[in-house]
């Protein structure tokens, strides 16, 4: 996909996120907006994906979302990638919907391979899927996305230790480094020191994307990450993002982690992101 089309899709996904959470007055727009460029680029230009969906995902790259609360961006990107009708985004968080508050396989939504929401489990799941790829002699890659606050969950460090010890080198785990969590800045809630230093100490290859909201930078950084796979070490991408990116009043604050805009705020936010591909 060309850069112009990537930008158009990114803007449309932003509108989807804002309209989804506004409609049900709940959900997590902040982290969703911060990861929009990344997930759009991942699904359109980076991952090797097959047409259609089956759970086993043989002969294609797979993605696991660990920080499941950013489901609005995940659902919008999946829909625009053809896994289910875009108009189904209208059912987000409603009774009897396949688009649950947090992603699940339980309702049979194509594109989702694991439930997530309770934090800290997705990296382990991704490692398991990566090891099955190796057993199946399937040279495709496993991608996963974790929040930075999520790294406070201890299971991640079990997984990080295991992945390097077992040379799980067909895995690219991206950390959304937005520096924020529900209760405030990660440095105030529980300072984690150098996340880069920690991953390197656990013998991972670390690649930094300084502007994780810039499509060019994401394309370049993920190409570097891909080139680093298959060399005996798991690969970590530190993606520095802006929570609430693209909506001025949602940026530079943790306030929109899990809060929906009201009618006026939605109008303001949508005006900053004019319709490109058409609203659902």
């Amino acid at each position, binding site marked *: 996909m060309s850069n112009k089309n990537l930008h158009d899709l990114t803007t449309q996904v932003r509108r989807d996120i804002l309209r989804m959470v506004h409609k049900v007055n709940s959900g997590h727009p902040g982290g969703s907006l911060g990861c929009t460029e990344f997930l759009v680029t991942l699904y359109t230009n980076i991952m090797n994906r097959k047409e259609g969906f089956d*759970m*086993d*995902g*043989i002969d294609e790259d*797979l993605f*696991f979302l660990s920080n499941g609360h950013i489901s609005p961006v995940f659902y919008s990107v999946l829909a625009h990638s053809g896994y289910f009708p875009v108009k189904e985004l209208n059912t987000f968080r409603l009774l009897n919907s396949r688009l649950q508050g947090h992603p*699940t*396989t*339980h309702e049979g939504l194509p594109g989702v*391979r*694991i*439930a*997530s*929401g*309770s934090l*800290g*489990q*997705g990296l*382990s*799941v*991704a*490692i*398991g*899927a*990566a*090891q*099955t*790829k190796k*057993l*199946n002699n*399937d040279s495709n890659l496993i991608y996963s996305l974790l929040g930075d606050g999520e790294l406070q969950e*201890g*299971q991640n460090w*079990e*997984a990080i*230790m*295991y992945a390097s*010890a*077992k040379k799980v080198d067909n895995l690219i785990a991206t950390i959304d480094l937005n520096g924020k969590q529900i209760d405030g800045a990660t440095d105030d809630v529980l300072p984690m020191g150098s996340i880069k230093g920690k991953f390197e100490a656990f013998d991972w290859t670390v690649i930094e994307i300084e502007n994780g909201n810039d499509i060019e930078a994401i394309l370049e950084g993920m190409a570097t990450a891909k080139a680093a796979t298959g060399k005996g070490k798991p690969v970590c991408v530190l993606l520095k993002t802006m929570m609430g990116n693209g909506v001025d009043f949602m940026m530079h604050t943790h306030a929109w982690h899990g809060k929906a805009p009201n009618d006026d705020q939605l109008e303001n936010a949508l005006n900053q992101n004019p319709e490109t591909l058409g609203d659902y």
Partner: protein
Amino acid sequence: MKTYTYTEKKDTRSGFGAGLTELGRTNPNVVALCADLIGSLKMNQFIEENPERFFQIGIAEANMMSIAAGLTIGGKIPFTGTFANFSTGRVYDQIRQSIAYSDKNVKICASHAGLTLGEDGATHQILEDIGLMKMLPGMVVINTCDYNQTKAATIAIADYEGPVYLRFGRPAVPVFTPEDQVFEIGKAIQLQEGSDVTIVATGHLVWEALEAAKVLHEQGISAEVINIHTIKPLDDKAILDSVAKTGCIVTAEEHNHLGGLGESVARVLALHHPTPQEFVATNDTFGESGTPAQLMEKYGLNSDSIVEKTLKVIKRK
């Protein structure tokens, strides 16, 4: 009255090990994971024959459960091995979200369940695991009674699509079920036919129930003994057919009376055929250090207790 004998005692965990070894030879999709308890779980032979299909996780059970969920994606059938306490309570949320809610085909194989773990004491003697696991939607819960049944169950669950909790134990117990049995998930097995009382037992208490039936027979009491190896889904029909004849029931298990087999049976009876019931189970307590036999006696989990509860329940008819 049928006679049950045995020529040897073996631990049920060795039945698991033997079943896993056979699966390694017959089912290329079976993989195994362990959190630093290979010897205790008797997984050595499988590992020797299939090193590429074994994952040593280290002492990190949460990671093990979620990795197992991931391994299913691409068609593998993971069998996780650790003690029952670390297979359930320690990793409940990982099982709940990544395995049960995500509908993953993981077999959680749990050794050293209950008091018969013995001297290690209450930190390791989980008596709540059946309850924890049966409450998870879609989870099959199995507690086997001897070496042969555990081996057969291990082989059978590989052919079942969906999450399974398989519970077994540490001590050597009589081997009395047939070597060539076919294990049917959810199908109770009638071991003795009787008319005065139904004794429904699971796990290590099944042999104790047979011993109790002999004592009761000498007292002129005809006990029907049923081996319930699958606690979920429960064989409702077998229980209801039996109590329709006998009019009273004793349940026996190496587990807390809250959340175990007894409660599942009580629910079936309350819904369909209210019947006097007595419980052979622990009484909402933790265990302690001791030999398995000492502990089973102190906490009332042996044939003497089954006889006592039987005499009590018959009077309530």
